[in-house]
């Protein structure tokens, strides 16, 4: 891992030698592969990229890549990523995690990250379940999904991440499917390239607690229409599709939040003046 990198790394070089804890067949393997591919396609060196996450099966992602990684606490990935990117605009920062991490405990940061529009990419591996804690409803779970914690289902309307992202100001909104490695890599690459806050919701089956999600591969299909830069139109489309239209659904050009960093106009001495008597 320490040989000086003369040529740019290939996709496989973005994967670490740590064996994932994921179940065989978990959708997150595909996301890892797509992510590695996207980073290679974009011509990054590994040290230029930082991957930040919270807690959950999907949040294990950073350690399985060979970039800089941060595996923090549940729900706070976007806050860590924001602090990192604002203070280190030279890095490419990607936050990654699950639907529980991002839409339940992390919901407030999701809202405000979309609004703040820092130049980040946020990848959510949505499996409509809490995988890591062994199968409870997440905000995106169907209201009638039976499970031990909420027998018969929560009865609650599923959270609509793409609509909320649009309504809160995300500058790039896409849906991907983990089974489609190349398509997902392409979407991730576009998201990373897009300036401002880019949100990629990836349908990533939990084969253990939601085995029926294996059927997603039959359902996922490319979005029939081209991306729009009108958030209202994008929202309407998303609200009326069946949740399986794959592709970039909205791409805007709102200015990212990036305060100027590193150029001092004053010295500590200057600041002291105001106190001197």
């Amino acid at each position: 891992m320490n040989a000086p990198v003369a040529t740019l790394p290939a996709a496989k070089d973005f994967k670490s030698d740590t064996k994932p804890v994921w179940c065989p067949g978990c959708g997150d393997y595909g996301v890892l592969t797509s992510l590695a591919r996207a980073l290679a396609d974009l011509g990054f060196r590994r040290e230029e990229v930082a991957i930040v996450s919270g807690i959950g099966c999907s949040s294990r992602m950073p350690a399985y890549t060979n970039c800089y990684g941060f595996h923090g606490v549940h729900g706070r990935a976007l806050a860590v990523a924001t602090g990192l990117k604002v203070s280190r605009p030279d890095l490419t920062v990607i936050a990654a995690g699950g639907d529980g991490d991002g839409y339940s405990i992390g919901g407030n940061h999701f809202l405000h990250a979309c609004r703040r529009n820092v130049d980040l990419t946020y990848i959510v591996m949505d499996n409509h379940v809490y995988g890591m804690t062994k199968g409870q409803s997440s905000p995106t779970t169907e209201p009638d999904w039976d499970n031990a914690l909420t027998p018969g289902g929560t009865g609650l309307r599923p959270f609509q991440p793409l609509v909320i992202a649009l309504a809160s100001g995300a500058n790039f909104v896409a849906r991907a499917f983990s089974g489609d490695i190349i398509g997902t890599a392409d979407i991730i690459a576009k998201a990373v390239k897009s300036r401002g806050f880019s949100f990629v919701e990836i349908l990533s089956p939990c084969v253990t607690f939601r085995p029926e999600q294996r059927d997603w591969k039959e359902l996922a299909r490319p979005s029939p229409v081209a991306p729009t830069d009108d958030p209202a139109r994008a929202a309407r489309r998303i609200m009326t599709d069946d949740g399986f239209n794959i592709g970039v659904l909205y791409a805007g050009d709102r200015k990212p939040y990036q305060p100027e960093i590193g150029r001092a106009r004053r010295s500590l001495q200057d600041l002291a003046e105001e106190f001197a008597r």
Partner: protein
Amino acid sequence: MTSAARTKASPGVSVAMTGSGGSGVMTAGNMLLEAAALAGCYGLMSRTSGPQIRGGEAAALIRLAGEPIEGHDDRFDLVISIDWLNLERFAAEIPLDSKSIAIGDPGQGEPPAAMLGPVTRRLALPMKALAKKIPGGRANMIALGYVGSLIGLPEDALAEAVRRTLGAEGDRLTASLAGIEAGRLAAAGVDCPHRLAPRRSDGAKRWLITGNEAAGYGALKGGVRFVAAYPITPATEMLEWMSPALSGLGGVLVQAEDELASINMVIGASYGGTPALTATSGPGFALMTESLGLAVAAEVPIVVVDVMRSGPSTGIPTKSEQADLNIALYGVHGDAPHVVVAPNSVADCLTTTHWAVHLAESMQVPVVVLSDQSMGQTRMLIDAPRDKDFIGERAVAAANGQDYKRYALTPSGVSPMAIPGTPSLMYTADGLEHSERGTPSSQARDHLAQLDKRERKLRSADFGLHWAEIEGEGEIAVLTWGSCTGPVREAIARARTDGVAVKLVSLRLLSPSYPDRLAAALEGVKRVLVVEQTHSGQFYRYLRAEHALNAELRAMHRPGPLPMRPGDIHRELVEWSRP
């Protein structure tokens, strides 16, 4: 010990300027402080106000002296009220006695009897009437001129203070100057025993600064260039001072959506190599402890300033207390060694926050700075701070062709940290227990090794001389911390005039405990009075838990919102020292 002796030992003049909404007592108070500075005095001012968000009754509490002072006296020499509306609310905050003088406007009704009970001397000053005679004149300027003159501040210092506040010209300036002049004239011939005796004229620079500003400045001096925070009383002013200062220095302050976000933004920035800080108060601090533990486990240096207010829960947001000691020391789940330090004066807010950054960076550990409302919001004249050589150097890893182990088990416990962007050192920082490389591990040997390592960082560190303030000698000592130190120091000085020798030990380093140093500092001490501003005696319990002190201990603890008074501590000391 008579009360006269106590009064004798207590330097300076204490003045309370009060009035209802919009009466301008804060402006007048600030000008009085500025004038004292120009006259070569020391001094301080704190504010208090009623429950109204804006425009209710308020009081500027000022103490001025020829020598450095650090807190309020037991009582006030002068109280001047532009009107007496709702003043009884402040009765406990403005203790008066038979030597106090109360100045009121005869046109503004009767003063509250309960409050002015012991006061024998009252002066009438028709502030509103005098002000009316001046175009644009205001009663607060009459009060300023009157009081300034009574306590012996030179005329030109007052005028210059007004000028510095209002600018070199304009109607308001003219009216204000006329006002103080009218007040001064009204004071002519009034004899006042409470007068300033400025001692200093050595030309040395002084600063006029609040503890919040000092902490902010100290942080910047320590190298902090990223701050994320969420507003909360009484920490907001620290942040509001830092925000433009940071952007001037090429750093940034981000207003976060909540405290969960602010501490995690700070962790992200520090992970990226930028020294980073957040500031909050009790309720916000409570929200941060989960992520404080993350910073411990992932070994990310951060500084968290808690400007304490009265608790529990929302408590009394505008008043001081030291009762966040417990949560700062012990409020993290799991075994999570981290550093807790506390400044012991307004001036020390600067040095200790600077030190905190140094400790965080050099040990890769979160450092909590326990300031409080009374230091944070008191504006004080202090000697210009000297430079301290706290150099917050983070051990940074450089690519060396070897397998990088972020959490390598070094003898000091500190392992060089790779900064993102450095080739060939990519690693994942983790809050899960991990191996030396950072890979998650649930093995007992990794857990023990990393727990040992994280503890070793703190136990093996040398905290130098800054860990405590130690003054004087005596068989009795007072052991204290934080903003109690000022009143304790003053109480000790008074005891000295009674012939009682008392040693002062004020801890700046609260965690890790430093038992050998403290034992050495208390060598030969037979009795220790433990002074703190909590209801339950948190500091006292902490001392018992962490230290094996040989001396007899006595606990003196009381909650906010009233400040600790030197007189109470002095009384306790003198009583205890009786055979």
